[in-house]
């Protein structure tokens, strides 16, 4: 832009950043530094996994104007798909007793299965149900809520309504110990994958033709159509990709927690919605920031006052809605 930024505005921006960092460090008053670092890593890892769900949710909302409440169900289905694959591979002796290579391969296969199941479910849901209710928010919310419930129930039919223990390769359990800061190995994996996905999504959005089409579609669907692009096909593709990301997130969550339940989709959806509201609907970067905030706040507060952990996130959401009703990076409509 060729306009000089307004000095006052820049000052305010720096003040906001300073405030953000000081709030981030605020828990240090009550938590000793070592624990604080452990919690920070845990919070970032949780944030990255939340981001995987929230990214799809926010792009689907921005592009298609659909609030997909079934997004959490993709997360749960991904977790169960990964669980099933790991169980099957354990029969071959790859998981609990396998070598490092077999362990890595089985985790990759689990994530791949999640990716596939997420894509297939996304394709099905978009084509069969959501395409019938484009442009009608009320019906979309009602129907995706129903789809979410049905998908969770099918999990209970196929597996069981109870918790399941996920078998995790030995090489992914345990933790690193760096000067008393204990860091769970899989948290590192989660952070790396989350950052990679964020970088990948941003690269696609900024550099590729597809990214231009999606950003253009977020702004004005009609123009994109009249320029010769079949918007329905793009909707389906984006919906599938979003669903697949959520499913991968779920599968990683399952491996990370070593336990899965049919209700995990609903819990994840709540967090993802908070993230998307904080970050601004339609903004990938906003979701990334929001996910980090929610993950960190959840872990700090869960350490101090376990009962209020979700409440702290709702409080953050409320405060953000007060200051910036459209979220951190949201566009006013």
């Amino acid at each position, binding site marked *: 832009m060729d306009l000089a930024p307004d000095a006052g505005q820049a000052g305010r921006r720096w003040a906001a950043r300073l405030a953000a960092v000081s709030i981030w460090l605020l828990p240090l008053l009550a938590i000793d530094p070592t624990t604080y670092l452990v919690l920070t890593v845990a919070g970032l890892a949780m944030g990255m996994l939340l981001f995987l769900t929230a990214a799809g949710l926010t792009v689907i909302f921005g592009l298609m104007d659909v609030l997909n409440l079934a997004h959490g169900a993709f997360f749960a289905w991904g977790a169960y798909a990964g669980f099933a694959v790991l169980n099957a591979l354990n029969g071959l002796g790859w998981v609990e007793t396998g070598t490092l290579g077999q362990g890595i391969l089985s985790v990759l296969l689990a994530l791949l299965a999640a990716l596939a199941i997420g894509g297939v479910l996304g394709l099905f849901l978009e084509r069969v149900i959501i395409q019938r209710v484009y442009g009608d*928010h009320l019906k979309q919310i009602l129907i995706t809520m129903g789809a979410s*419930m*049905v998908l969770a*129930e099918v999990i*209970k039919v196929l597996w069981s309504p109870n918790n399941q223990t996920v078998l995790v390769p030995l090489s992914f359990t345990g933790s690193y110990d760096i000067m008393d800061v204990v860091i769970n190995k899989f948290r590192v994996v989660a952070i790396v994958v989350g950052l990679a996905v964020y970088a990948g999504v941003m690269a696609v959005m900024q550099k590729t033709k597809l990214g231009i089409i999606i950003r253009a579609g977020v702004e004005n669907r009609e123009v994109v159509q009249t320029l010769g692009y079949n918007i329905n096909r793009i909707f389906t593709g984006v919906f599938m990709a979003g669903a697949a990301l959520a499913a991968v997130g779920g599968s990683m969550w399952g491996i990370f927690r070593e336990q899965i339940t049919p209700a995990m989709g609903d819990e994840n959806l709540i967090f993802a919605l908070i993230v998307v509201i904080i970050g601004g609907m339609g903004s990938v970067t906003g979701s990334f920031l929001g996910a980090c905030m929610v993950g960190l706040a959840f872990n700090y507060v869960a350490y101090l006052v376990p009962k209020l952990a*979700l409440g702290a996130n709702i409080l953050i959401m409320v405060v953000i809605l007060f200051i910036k009703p459209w979220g951190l990076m949201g566009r006013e409509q």
Partner: protein
Amino acid sequence: MTGREPTPVQMERLHQRSRRFTRPGFLIQLALLACLIAGPLVMPSFRVMDLVAKIMIFAVAVASFDIILGYTGIISFAHGMFFGLGAYSVALICHYSQPVQYHHLLLAGVLAALISTVVAVVISALSLRVKAIFFAMVTLAVAEFCHILGYQWSSLTKGEDGVSFKLPGVFSADWSGGALWGTQINGRLLVYYLILVVCALLFVGLVRFVRSPVGRVLKAIRDNEQRATALGYRVFRYRVLSTVFGSLVSSLCGALFAMWLSYVNPDTVLGTPLMLNILLMVIIGGLGTVYGGILGAAFIKIAETWLPDLQKLALSLFPKMELMHRLAERWILLFGILYILSVLFFPKGVVGTLRDQAEARRLRRLGRP
């Protein structure tokens, strides 16, 4: 205009008013009320009375949800939470007051109303200002938070075990007052009549609200927000008003529900299944009809009562198929599919469809296309 001559609209209203006691709808209402009053005396079956009491409570809860969803076009996922707030108000006050007295019930009712009003005002003031879709998201999060609090704040709510309590005086389960025409008069029966009276009053209140000038403005906003704004209505205020009113009624329904069961726990009065039930009832009954709530609640509650028998039937038909057994256990799955199909193909519900047909008949009689 002389001021004496009624306008055509006034004439139509006067005409309708003159017929209001002879309309078939009014007669049906009267008959329904008579059945509800006489039912327990004529047919003393606890199972039936239990079913009917629950239907009454849910009919009002669903109708109040319809005020928010059908008449204002806002989706609140916190309707079940408000129900739960009312239920827990009664349960906790009765549980912790020793000995429990009549004024405690009144206090619980007032507390339920107060808490739900404050919470509803805060939530809607925050999220309705921006976009109605935010409201759905925020209420979903807040409702989940309350559900978790219900579990985890166990020093107050006793967590998963739930709170059981005694009602005061004649409403208490062990009070007995002799027999009337061969029917045992006891605490349960009196609570039933209390529920009947309160539900009838609330329902009349909801119907009046919908027909009031405020209700008409709400419909105008739902159908065309821009036009309503241009006409000078403060859309935001009306939305907040209707949300708060609907939530308030829901919390009172929750209070009645708790009194009926003398017991609450997080899953039955705060959890997602409750919210899904309300959604299903309102969809099946018909959005924007108020009366649909009665049908929706009756359908679901009766289905729930009969489902265990259906399950047994399914199991005996397919004794070998394990998947079939699991499917039969998951009746929420069947309800969910039914719900999706009704949103897609039957969006006006039973009452809405019937009304459309009646309207079409009326127009045909008038000779209009």
